């Protein structure tokens, strides 16, 4: 009986097709097996044979000195430098930068995946942290208040220049880099678009290929969707602590000595990949994962700017000060509280006529759609059912990018990023030759 049920579910997963018929071509028949977008987001590619088989690459880490003027607060002493992950080809080749998603570091799982994919087709590769990651905010975030895309792009640009100079510091390496590519996933994709736009003015890199993977259309719209997912925790928001505790138990149980600890969504997703929770808990799980990213971002920003969001503005923090109370507060506030109570007031101080709506409208791909329309070297890979997009938002991509947009019928948010076909399409985009 059980076996019957399971094969039924598997068959359903494999053959379920997206309901909506669209005006533009979507990629189907498409073999990515997980039909539910929330499950896809957590589980990823469930079968090893369906994951892209990429050759292993030996990555190294180097560090740049901080690019910000300010003194690094003592309590964040470990974030004085800017790390980057890289792997070079033995001969001259183009170099591709990979920008991580919300809260994720230079060596995030998805950064490494994309770097391996690009290294396999002949690129030097460099992985960078997201400007929303605590370390980046501290050592490279010029305002200390991330999420303002043009400013984040400037900060990233500075780091990318630093990396380029660092990798070509020796005379014999001067001609090692023959050109530049750029990519990023999730928020990192949005950052990539803004960096590409900045580069069109500055011309330091002249990217020949830029690929955006599952970007939000509007930052505000996406983060408020993620914030609201927490409300679907069984028992409501008041039951969040108990729910969170159960997630932690699962993570602890799955933890092996050979695992690293990353404070982004992989912390939870990895523990649940084999054994996802029921459908009523999936959205809550995704929401909780982003809550911890939000809490890191908010607290770091609060410490650096002395804004007084959750930490008293005149607090003297040192290495033995307990931050536990602040973690309890910031995990309950979400990105939307950050937006309204800290981010907006902070930027309004610099520009008094600024309205909330105006600031939110600037943090969209719509704001730079003229550039995206004309820049024929920028492509986008997205999913029809991405859970960070509001209904209808997906239409923007084929409309603006035309043939440079590829919309997969399913995959949720990044669930299909390591799927064979996705990686092949990704590599093809960067080489211009079918892989």
């Amino acid at each position, binding site marked *: 009986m059980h076996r019957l049920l399971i094969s039924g579910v598997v068959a359903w997963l494999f053959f379920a097709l997206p309901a909506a018929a669209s005006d533009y071509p979507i990629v189907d028949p498409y073999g990515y097996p997980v039909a539910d977008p929330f499950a896809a987001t957590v589980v990823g590619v469930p079968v090893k044979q369906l994951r892209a088989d990429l050759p292993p690459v030996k990555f190294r880490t180097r560090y740049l000195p901080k690019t910000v003027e300010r003194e690094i607060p003592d309590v964040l002493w470990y974030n004085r430098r800017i790390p980057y992950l890289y792997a070079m080809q033995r001969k001259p080749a183009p170099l591709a930068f990979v920008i991580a998603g919300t809260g994720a570091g230079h060596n995030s799982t998805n950064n490494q995946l994309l770097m391996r994919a690009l290294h396999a087709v002949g690129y030097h590769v460099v992985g960078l942290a997201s400007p929303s990651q605590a370390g980046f905010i501290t050592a490279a975030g010029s305002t200390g208040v991330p999420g303002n895309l043009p400013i984040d792009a400037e900060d990233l640009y500075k780091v990318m220049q630093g990396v380029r100079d660092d990798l070509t510091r020796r005379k014999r390496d001067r001609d090692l880099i023959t050109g530049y590519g750029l990519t990023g996933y999730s928020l990192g994709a949005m950052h990539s678009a803004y960096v590409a736009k900045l580069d069109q003015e500055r011309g330091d890199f002249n990217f020949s290929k830029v690929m955006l993977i599952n970007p939000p259309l509007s930052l505000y719209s996406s983060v408020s969707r993620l914030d609201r997912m927490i409300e679907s925790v069984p028992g409501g928001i008041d039951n969040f602590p108990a729910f969170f505790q159960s997630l932690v138990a699962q993570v602890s149980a799955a933890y092996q000595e*050979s695992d690293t600890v990353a404070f982004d969504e992989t912390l939870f997703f990895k523990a649940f990949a084999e054994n996802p929770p029921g459908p009523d808990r999936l959205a809550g799980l995704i929401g909780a994962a982003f809550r911890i990213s939000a809490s890191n971002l908010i*607290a770091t920003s609060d410490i650096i700017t002395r804004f007084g969001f959750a930490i008293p503005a005149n607090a003297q923090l040192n290495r*033995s000060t307990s931050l536990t109370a602040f973690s*309890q507060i910031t995990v309950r506030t979400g990105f939307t509280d950050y937006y309204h109570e800290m981010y907006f007031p902070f930027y309004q101080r610099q520009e008094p006529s600024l309205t909330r709506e105006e600031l939110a409208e600037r943090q969209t791909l719509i704001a730079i759609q003229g550039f995206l329309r004309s820049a024929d070297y920028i492509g986008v890979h997205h999913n029809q059912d991405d859970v960070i997009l509001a209904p209808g938002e997906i239409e923007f991509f084929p409309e603006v990018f035309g043939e440079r947009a590829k919309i997969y019928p399913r995959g949720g948010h990044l669930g299909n990023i390591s799927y064979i076909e996705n990686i092949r399409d990704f590599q093809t985009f960067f080489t211009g030759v079918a892989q």
Partner: protein
Amino acid sequence: MNYPVRLKNIALLCSLVLCLGLTGCSTKLKTDGPVEEPLFTPERIIDPGVTPLSDVNDPWEGLNRRIYNFNARADRWVLLPAVRGYRFIFPSFARTGIRNVFNTFRDVVTFANQLLQFKPKQAGHTTVRVAANLTFGLLGTIDAATAMKLPQYQEDFGQTLGRWGVGTGPYVVLPLYGPSNLRDTVGLIPDTLLQNYLWDQLLSDDDGYSAERNAVRVTLQTLDARDRVAFQYHSTTSPFEYELVRLLAATKRQLDVEK
């Protein structure tokens, strides 16, 4: 983050933790002048009656945080460079062999604790496991038991105490060793004594105890222990890494005892 620690060191650490913990570093928030109330306070955001997220008992937090940071530095400047050297000198198969030998000694400690916890069936598995590895596994260098699908358990005296109903006591960060609690710190003593006794038997010859050979053993054991663990201090860059590690470590220990 589990490094073998000699008994002497443990005794020293215990007294250090206890002495400093009582007088230790204050975790209380200091401010310039009267506290400027932030926008979001616990009173505003957390409803009364809702359990707080992390309720790990950590009265010595100030000292623990200092030791956590000390460990981060020791790791970066001493242990990790040493492990890089270890990986350079010993090829992968040699390191696996070394690891298997230490695992076999660990299995003996597990066996003793399984007896103390009245788990005869699991103790039987462990006995067969040790026997298989010492014979087919060429004195423990090859993990023949795992190849034979024999389960491997991990029991220590901290877990045994937990099984007997002893509470964890306060959370403790041990120098170099990492997260623990008072009960498990005490539990390290008999486990270490037993392992040292076994090693002394093996490494002694007609001339008696060899300090040099034992020093080599302890060094290799430390390098191997660090080599197993992928965790790197402050790699999350988060101001709350201490809280995260504390929560994960405490939960993990709780699950280990319940197993």
